[in-house]
């Protein structure tokens, strides 16, 4: 999946990744996609909640090599 920007939050614990992702999405253009990599299992629920609360679309999430990868499209 293509993306405009990437953020590697490996090593960050909840609530760090979601706080930073929200800030990054705020600085992107509508329709742009942010790829996020995390190691915290709590980020699975956090990213879904972020999408629900903010209107950004969680396009895809997957587990890759013991990391979690998310694609979020800016609302």
């Amino acid at each position, binding site marked *: 999946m293509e993306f405009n920007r990437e953020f590697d939050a490996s090593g960050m*614990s909840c*609530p760090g990744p*979601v*706080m930073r992702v929200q800030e990054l999405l705020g600085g992107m253009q509508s329709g742009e996609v942010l790829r996020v990599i995390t190691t915290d299992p*709590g980020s699975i629920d956090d990213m879904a*909640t*972020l999408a629900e609360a903010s209107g950004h679309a969680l396009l895809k999430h997957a587990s890759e090599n013991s990391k979690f990868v998310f694609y979020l499209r800016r609302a």
Partner: protein
Amino acid sequence: MTDMAHPAALVTWGGFVLALVFGAVANKSNFCIMGAISDVVNMGHWGRVRMWMLAVAVAIIGASLLQLSGLVDLSRSLYPRPTLPWLSLIVGGLCFGFGMTLAGGCANKNLIRLGGGSLRSLVVLVFVGISGYMTLKGLFGQWRATLLDPVSIDLAAFGLASASLPVLLARLTGLPASTALMVTAATISLALLAFVFRDARFRRNRLQVASSVILGLVIVGGWYLTGHLGYGENRETLETVYFATNSRTLESLSFVAPTAYSLELLMLWTDKSLRVTFGITSAAGVVLGSLAAAVATRRFRWEGFASLEDLCNQLVGAMLMGFGGVTAVGCTIGQGLSGLSTLALGSLLAVTGIIVGSWIAMQWLKRRL
């Protein structure tokens, strides 16, 4: 098994089973009070706060019914005692709230994560236990006992038998104690239920609704177990006692001091004065309940520390949680569910401290990110 041992065994095994349910449900529903605060502060999302408030409402209703029916005497628990150590409750709450945010979750969340395969949480819990034990009986305990606990208000001097909202209402209005309890419990729980179910999305989320009700009922179950089934005469001393609790009074779920007592028991196993208690088995029960849920839902996953910074944050957070959880007489579950279910004034102070501490930590984290 002797007659005397029977209530103790009932309390410890009962605590284990209750906590097993608590751990499984909390894992499955992603119940997390730090996460709930974070959702509101960072995203304006109130879903998990509604979960927490629904569990509190159920716990208040259940605990009040137990009290009104005479099955337990909640005024004898740690939370509504007439001497209100307000500075300890506030400072402890602030430390706990700040610590749990640094550590990515409270003591309960780390027990749940441990069940899900997080060895990082195992290290966090060891440090919570060490810090908690130091605050119970060690260096931090000396600071707590000399600097914080003496700063208190003796509400007995104002005619209050215990530091709880119903007793305060009875004192101010002259209502009988049972009526004041009914009025207070009904008013607060109905207000919470109205807030919780006002949101259509939450009403439709059956997992979150059912989970919150179960978590609240587990707290009520803890009070019934230690306060009724575990209350009786010790055949050796002929004293009436609460069996198998570390506080020597009735308890429901709480996880900081029990983590410390679990470490103590493991390290001093041959000391025959030490016993397995409700708190110790409930801490173990949460881990195993969470493990069962993680395996059943295929979410079990080994996890370690990802970086040196992560390790530092977790250890500092764990030490703050251990100190804060003991100083505030409870954690997010101990004060945030069990304590609030007794309608204790001290629990309101401690929970406010936890929320504010967590908020301060989030503002600090935002600046660092």
